[in-house]
């Protein structure tokens, strides 16, 4: 068993080294950027920790107590993230990779495969936990002061034990997560609803962070955030965060032996439960998977006659809705964009009002909604690529390139248009813009969306990146996505910034009402129409020839 696992790890290393050799500069740049982000976050954390440790309302609120609370939160955050990532890795690594199908016919047991995957997970989580937690906990120790060598030793021990717990919890959760995922894979609309709910949750958290930033901007001091009420809630939460508080108390040396035993007991209990579950279920699920267990039976739908364009549009909808990756990036993003826009406009509006004492909601809405529109439209950069082999099959069907491309643009237009409409409605209902402004906003953002869709589709037609994985899904964004985002943001800044510039200039120079109210809108409509026209010309010029162009996909 040991020898087999050693060989499997050797294979992993060979693959990882080979991947590292490719695109060395790109990876180096990513590493440097990552290091810069970590350094910046550490800097912010030191400031935050210093403020948090000094909060005192009662005589018992010593920096030592605050340190334990913060350590508990940090441990909880890392444990939660590790369990989430670990569960995901086990589900995809054990049940869904092509590698499992390759390895299973070899003289490698299901048990060995599981041990190898779990060991691999443990080592990666150990590395991530150590890199994240050790510096943060040590910073806390240094800031609180009075920590002896035992604090640092116990911190290292705790950091080594935490991945054991997260790995065991991930193994336990992998089975229900797999069952849920399998269930959702057969219920496309429900899956989309779950995705949208998760994204909405994400933006709710995002709004909390924005609220935090708003308070910070208004107060100007971190200390103002930590009111007595907030601190009481945080203290209560830290005391209830089992088993993370055991780790914090152990590191801090408070009842170290008792807390250490508690950690060991919890870890052993989770580990044993995971082992038991694995023994009972893993082999069975794997066998079922290899036998092609997922039989997806659909309702028998009558064959309904449609026009060619309607049929192509219907096909777009079905194939996107039923692909989890595409459904997420298309529908879920479009659904949550209005919320994202609304929150950002309100924050930007507050900022501008506090700094310049002027209200420019229309211009800000223009900037923010058109900027977020590009995020919804990044999906259109795969309009041709996501067809995969079928793009070639469609060339042999009695379809003109124009109708094929137009059906895709129309599908994206419907999704993007609905998203823009909701975003504009949100800012209008929120009282940030008048009805007239909302109408102009809608026109401009729809023109922007159309321009982005036309551009992305044609560029993808010129250089498609067809999927080569077993899921037949384009998973890596190509340079069309990067270029679209860049151009989309530039356009948003030009539109919003230009309108804002005109508006501010007019207000500061006490210009006429026309200059203040009408000129920014006229400027935005004119610019958006110009860009949309240019983009449409780019799409339609030589379209048929481009559709019939020889591709290298199958040569």
């Amino acid at each position: 068993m040991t020898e087999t696992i050693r060989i499997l790890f050797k294979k992993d290393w060979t693959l990882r080294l080979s991947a590292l050799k490719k695109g060395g500069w790109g990876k180096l740049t990513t590493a440097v950027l990552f290091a810069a982000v970590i350094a910046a976050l550490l800097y912010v954390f030191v400031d935050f920790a210093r403020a948090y440790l000094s909060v005192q309302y009662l005589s018992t609120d010593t920096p030592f107590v605050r340190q334990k609370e913060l350590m508990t939160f940090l441990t909880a955050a890392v444990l939660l993230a590790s369990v989430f990532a670990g569960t995901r890795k086990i589900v995809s690594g054990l049940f869904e990779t092509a590698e499992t199908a390759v390895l299973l016919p070899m003289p490698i047991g299901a048990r060995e495969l599981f041990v190898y995957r779990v060991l691999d997970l443990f080592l990666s989580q150990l590395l991530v936990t150590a890199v994240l937690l050790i510096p943060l906990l040590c910073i806390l120790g240094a800031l609180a002061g009075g920590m002896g060598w035992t604090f640092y030793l116990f911190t290292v021990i705790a950091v080594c034990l935490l991945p054991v717990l997260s790995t065991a919890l991930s193994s336990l959760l992998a089975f229900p997560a797999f069952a849920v995922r399998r269930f959702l894979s057969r219920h496309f609309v429900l899956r989309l609803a779950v995705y949208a709910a998760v994204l909405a949750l994400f933006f709710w958290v995002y709004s909390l962070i924005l609220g935090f930033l708003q308070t910070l901007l208004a107060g100007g001091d971190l200390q103002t955030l930590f009111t007595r009420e907030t601190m009481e809630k945080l203290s209560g939460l830290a005391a209830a965060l089992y088993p993370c508080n055991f780790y914090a108390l152990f590191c801090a040396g408070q009842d170290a032996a008792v807390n250490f035993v508690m950690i060991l007991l919890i870890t052993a209990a989770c580990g044993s439960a995971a082992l038991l579950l694995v023994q009972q279920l893993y082999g069975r699920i794997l066998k079922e998977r290899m036998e092609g267990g997922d039989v997806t039976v659909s309702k028998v739908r009558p064959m309904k006659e449609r026009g060619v364009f309607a049929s192509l549009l219907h096909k777009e909808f079905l194939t996107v809705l039923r692909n989890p990756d595409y459904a997420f990036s298309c529908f879920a993003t479009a659904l949550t964009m209005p919320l994202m826009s609304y929150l950002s406009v309100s924050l930007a509006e507050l900022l501008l009002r506090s700094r310049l004492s002027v209200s420019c909601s229309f211009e800000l809405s223009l900037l923010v909604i058109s900027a977020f529109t590009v995020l919804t439209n990044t999906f259109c950069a795969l309009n041709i690529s996501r067809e995969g082999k079928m793009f070639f099959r469609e060339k042999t069907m009695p379809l003109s390139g124009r109708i094929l491309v137009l059906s895709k643009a129309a599908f994206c237009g419907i999704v993007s248009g609905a998203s823009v409409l909701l975003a504009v409605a949100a800012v209008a209902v929120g009282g940030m813009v008048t009805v007239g402004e909302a109408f102009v906003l809608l026109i401009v953002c729809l023109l922007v969306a159309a321009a982005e869709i036309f551009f992305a589709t044609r560029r993808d037609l010129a250089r498609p990146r067809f999927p080569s994985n077993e899921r037949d899904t384009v998973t890596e964004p190509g340079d069309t996505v990067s270029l679209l985002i860049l151009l989309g943001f530039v356009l948003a800044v030009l539109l919003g910034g230009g309108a804002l510039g005109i508006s501010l200039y007019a207000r500061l120079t006490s210009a006429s009402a026309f200059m203040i109210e009408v000129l920014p809108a006229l400027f935005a409509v004119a610019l958006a129409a110009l860009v949309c026209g240019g983009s449409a010309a780019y799409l339609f010029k030589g379209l048929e020839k481009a559709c019939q162009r020889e591709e290298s996909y199958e040569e």
Partner: protein
Amino acid sequence: MEDQQNVFAIQGLGKRYRGASDFAVRGIDIVCRGAEIVGLLGLNGAGKSTVIKCLTGFLPFEEGRIEICGHDIVTDAVAAKRCFGYVPDNRAVFARMTGREYLNFVADVYRVGGEDRKRRTEELSEVFGLGAKVDQLIESYSHGMRQKICLIAALIHRPRLWILDEPLTGLDPQSAKALREYMKAYKAEGNTVLYSSHNLDAVEKTCDRAVIIKQGTILANVDIKKFVAEKGKSLEEAFIDLFEG
């Protein structure tokens, strides 16, 4: 007048791939006037698939002219494409549709009426043994099942010309036999089948005529029965002799 009777006519076809110095195929002339099954034979890389891809409008070409039912594949592509049904060698389908949804989509594209598409779906599903699988997502299909849905999709509009590129790959013996028999029955209805394959035994049993391609040019265009009788060997042996000679 004579041209209008052609089901398809390839005249002087020359195709050079992007970046390649040599032509992949050149001087290809194939004319098919009526009900027959034509086999397209050749070694790997001989140019069979290139000819089929040019014929179906999949690939642009530099030399020659292709007409299908009197429609030029370059200048009147949509009309020409309505005249044939194509079974590609890569089994390309929309995997996240059910078999029935995919067939409905293809029927829409080829403008097949509501009743006709239902009847043909049932009939062809039975012929090729697709059964209840027609209402499952194609992504759950085996290779053979995918091949079957491609075969049915190519026939949903009852094309005058049925083009098959390596159609036997992945099919079980029973389905392969059913396909061969259906090809003959389809020809008997006055249609034409163009069939590219490495399976010479199947070609001998099914085709009336064979166009043999070697290094991008036509080596022979023969009546299979006469050819086999003249050589006094099976098509497979005669084919090997032809290439080694």
